[in-house]
Structures are given as structure tokens and as C-alpha cells.
């Protein structure tokens, strides 16, 4: 861990100015990801600008019935917030399925959105990684890739985005409020993360020095929702596949729905093919299966993660059945 200067930010604009001015400066919020990366050598900043004292941890109602969440709001506080539990149970469930109690007490909303991949090769500075060192190669293509992407990956990078919260926020059509040197702007969370393409070093569309100051949720979607996380341990493990789902059924047809997969891509994966197939359709077993299959048509498995294709399909199916009260058909037909 190389020496670095530490600076406690007085306010958000000065924090942004300080980081923007130094290409090797970073923000520190909860620290659960950054301090981990400092130890691993994945991050080696010259300056750490601490925004954890900025008191941007309010959760307020918006006039349109939505919610504004200060970026410094701790994961545990957000998950336990009465308004979140009542109106956005999907978000609460997703938050509570992530990490551990001790980590959720520290991790912030903004930091959680920006947490970096858990790819073991990214986290090991003694091996090549295109995300850390462009052009060095990707050992995950043929190595340990159980946790890696089946959708939207590139030859350069097959890493997955690890956040449960982000997966739910995409399903909730949340918007990140971002402060940059040129002022504040709004970025839909669904457009915040980017696919690796030929530049896997960039996880998001944010520029150096951009600081997420808040996340806004639109008025509740209504209908029924579920965050389903499939993982190797019963708790405290990253998702193999997760699903943030919200479905609204009216008059026997699916009026609207949101389906976002986690653990399958470099971003939370909005399952638009499945959504499109089901929007306006009657929820039948056949329709659900066709939708799940449509979403995974383009899935590409690596050497060690082919199981994620049926897993994602089955997760979609079983959650959709639950949310639309469809009984599973007999297994002989499965």
C-alpha cells in the first residue's frame, strides 16, 4: 500500500474539485470497497478525499411520491427505513441480501453503486487483467470463471457487477444525482454502468471527479415484487444469479413489469426481451417460458459457468410464477 495524503472534505463541491484536480485522487465513503482495494494494490491513490462526513444521509419524500436518498445513507439504514420497507420492499430485500450486517452498517448508497467487480483476477495484481491493465489479457476467459458473465461480455472482459442494491435500483427506475466539476446532472441508474466492450477499465459512465450525491426513486411501481438471490452459501455470498422483479397484473394480463438480472453481466442486466415478451400478455406457463428463453437466447457460457444459463432461466420462471400466481407444471413436462 503506497503512501497517500488524506483530506476530509468540507462539502461536496470542494470534494469534487479536489478529486478532479488530481488524476490519482479518489473518494472515500464507507471504505468497504476502497480500503479492500488499497490493501490488494488494485487502488493506489495519491490522495484520498473523505466524503463520509458530508451528512448526505437523509431519506426524504419527493413531491411526486418518490424518494430522495442521500448518497451517504448507509445500506442498513436504507434497508430499515420505514418508507423504503413500505413502498420499495424490493430495494430493502436487495440491500439485506448483500454483504453482512457489519458491512451494511458502513457501506453507503453511493459507494455500493460504484463497487467494483469481484473477479479474482481483477483483485490479484500479480496476474494479467484488462480491467486493471489494459491489453494485459483476461485469464478469466479460460480460468476460474464460475462467477463470470453470460450476457453482454466481450473478449476483453467477462467480469460481473456485484451489487444487489444496484440491480434493484435499475428495476425501480432510479436516477443517480451526480455532481461534477461542471455542476449537477442526473443519470438513470440503468444507464450508469456500462458493458465492457473494448474498454473494460471503465465500470460506469461517470468521469473522474464525479460524485454521486443522491439517488432518486420515482413513485412506487405498484404490483408485486421480489428480490431473489441464488448463491453458494445461505448468506454472506455474492450472487451467482439474482433477480429483481416487479410485476403488475391487471384484468388478467401483465400490465407492466421490470426484470433485472444480477450476477450475469458487467452491469445489472435489464431483461428487456423478457419484459417485452410479457408486457400485455396473459401470464401463462408457456408465456413465461418463452419470455425467459428469449432473454437467454444470446447467453454465452464460459468454461465454468454454463450452469448460469439454466439457473437464470429457472430463476426468472420461478419468480414470475410466484408473482403471477401460476402453479408450476408437473416436472415431467419441465
Amino acid at each position, binding site marked *: 500500500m503506497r503512501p497517500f495524503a*488524506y483530506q476530509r472534505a468540507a462539502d461536496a463541491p470542494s470534494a469534487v474539485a479536489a478529486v478532479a484536480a488530481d488524476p490519482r485522487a479518489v473518494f472515500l465513503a464507507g471504505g468497504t470497497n476502497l480500503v479492500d482495494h488499497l490493501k490488494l494494490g488494485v487502488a493506489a491513490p495519491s490522495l484520498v478525499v473523505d466524503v463520509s462526513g458530508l451528512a448526505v444521509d437523509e431519506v426524504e419524500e419527493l413531491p411526486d411520491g418518490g424518494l430522495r436518498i442521500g448518497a451517504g445513507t448507509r445500506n442498513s439504514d436504507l434497508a430499515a427505513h420505514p418508507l423504503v420497507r413500505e413502498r420499495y420492499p424490493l430495494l430493502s430485500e436487495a440491500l439485506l441480501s448483500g454483504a453482512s*450486517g*457489519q458491512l451494511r452498517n458502513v457501506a453507503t448508497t453511493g459507494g455500493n453503486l460504484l463497487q467494483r467487480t469481484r473477479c479474482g483476477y481483477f483483485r490479484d495484481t500479480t496476474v494479467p487483467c484488462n480491467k486493471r491493465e489494459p491489453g494485459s489479457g483476461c485469464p478469466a476467459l479460460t480460468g476460474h470463471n464460475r462467477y463470470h458473465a453470460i450476457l453482454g461480455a466481450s473478449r476483453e472482459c467477462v467480469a460481473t457487477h456485484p451489487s444487489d442494491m444496484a440491480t434493484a435500483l435499475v428495476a425501480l427506475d432510479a436516477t443517480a444525482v451526480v455532481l461534477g466539476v461542471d455542476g449537477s446532472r442526473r443519470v438513470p441508474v440503468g444507464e450508469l454502468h456500462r458493458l465492457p466492450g473494448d474498454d473494460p477499465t471503465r465500470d460506469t459512465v461517470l468521469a473522474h471527479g464525479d460524485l454521486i450525491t443522491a439517488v432518486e426513486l420515482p413513485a412506487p411501481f405498484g404490483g408485486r415484487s421480489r428480490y431473489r438471490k441464488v448463491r453458494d452459501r445461505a*448468506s454472506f455470498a455474492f450472487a451467482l444469479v439474482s433477480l429483481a422483479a416487479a410485476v403488475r397484473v391487471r384484468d388478467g394480463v401483465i400490465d407492466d413489469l421490470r426484470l433485472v438480472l444480477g450476477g450475469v453481466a458487467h452491469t445489472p442486466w435489464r431483461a428487456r426481451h423478457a419484459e417485452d415478451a410479457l408486457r400485455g400478455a396473459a401470464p401463462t406457463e408457456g408465456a413465461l417460458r418463452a419470455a425467459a428463453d428469449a432473454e437467454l437466447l444470446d447467453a454465452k457460457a464460459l468454461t465454468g459457468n454454463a450452469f448460469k444459463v439454466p439457473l437464470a432461466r429457472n430463476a426468472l420462471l420461478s419468480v414470475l410464477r410466484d408473482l403471477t400466481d401460476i402453479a408450476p407444471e408437473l416436472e415431467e413436462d419441465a
Partner: protein
Amino acid sequence: MEADITLRVDGEERVVTVDTRTTLLDALRDRLGVTAPKKGCDHGQCGSCTVLVDGRREVSCLSLAVAKDGAEVVTAAGLVDADGPHPVQRAFVDNDALQCGFCTPGQVCSAVGVLAEAEAGWPSAVTAPGATPELTDAEIKERMSGNLCRCGAYPGIVAAVREVAG
């Protein structure tokens, strides 16, 4: 680069010089000689460094000490007061909720945090949406899952927390 910070540790105000790179855990252990919190993984994956910071349970290995200037830190050692050990500590001993004991100070701090969180009505991943949580075995297991115990004392840990939760 060094900085002087003040921490209130187990009820006592301590001024300590740290490197900006020093974690809260290393400040406690290497600089202040407070060795109740343990270093099991140093990456937030085992929970043995858990302490209470301003009343909340946190892993101390993923915080920079310099960012915790002014914080109130309570370790397992600080849970012992004039009346003796904390009820959680007594329950851990009675229920044999430990073997090698290395993860135990972190487990104990985590359990104290769990009791407070449940008291405050915080849900967990196994709480039914909208429901008020009660510390059933399933709730205790889920909430204590950030603290690994390689000796496998989990059944005793659950029994100990259940006993104190009442």
C-alpha cells in the same frame, strides 16, 4: 504520511499517531495495544475484527483510522463493566459458543449489535416484508452470518444470542 487522531476506546480517550494507511483495526492492535479485536482476513470477509463504532457493529479492518478520528470504539474487552462480563459474554461461555476463541470477541460485539438492531426493528434478509422482526433462530443465524467460525460453534452461538434476546 502521519496524523494524530483521538479515539475513545473502551471508555478511555486515546490520542494516537497513525499512518494515513493504518486501518482502525491496526491502530487498535499495533498502536494502542488493544488486542481484543482480531485480524482473521483483513478484508471484511470473516468478521473477527468486529467492534462497535459509535454504537454500531462494524468490521474495523476496512476503515482507515484517520477517517474515524473522534469515534467511540467499544471492543469485546470494553463490554466488561463493573458488574462483570456483558450478558452476551456470559451466554457465550455458558452455551460453549466458542472453541478456539479467536473469532469470539468479534462474534460477541456482533451479537451486541444484532440485539440493538433487532430492538430498533431493523429487518434482515429472512424477515417477511413489512413484518416486525423477532429474534428467531433463523433471524439470529442470518444476522450473525458476517462472523465466520471455523471451529463450527454456530449452534452454540445461536443458543447464546437466543438466550440473551429472551
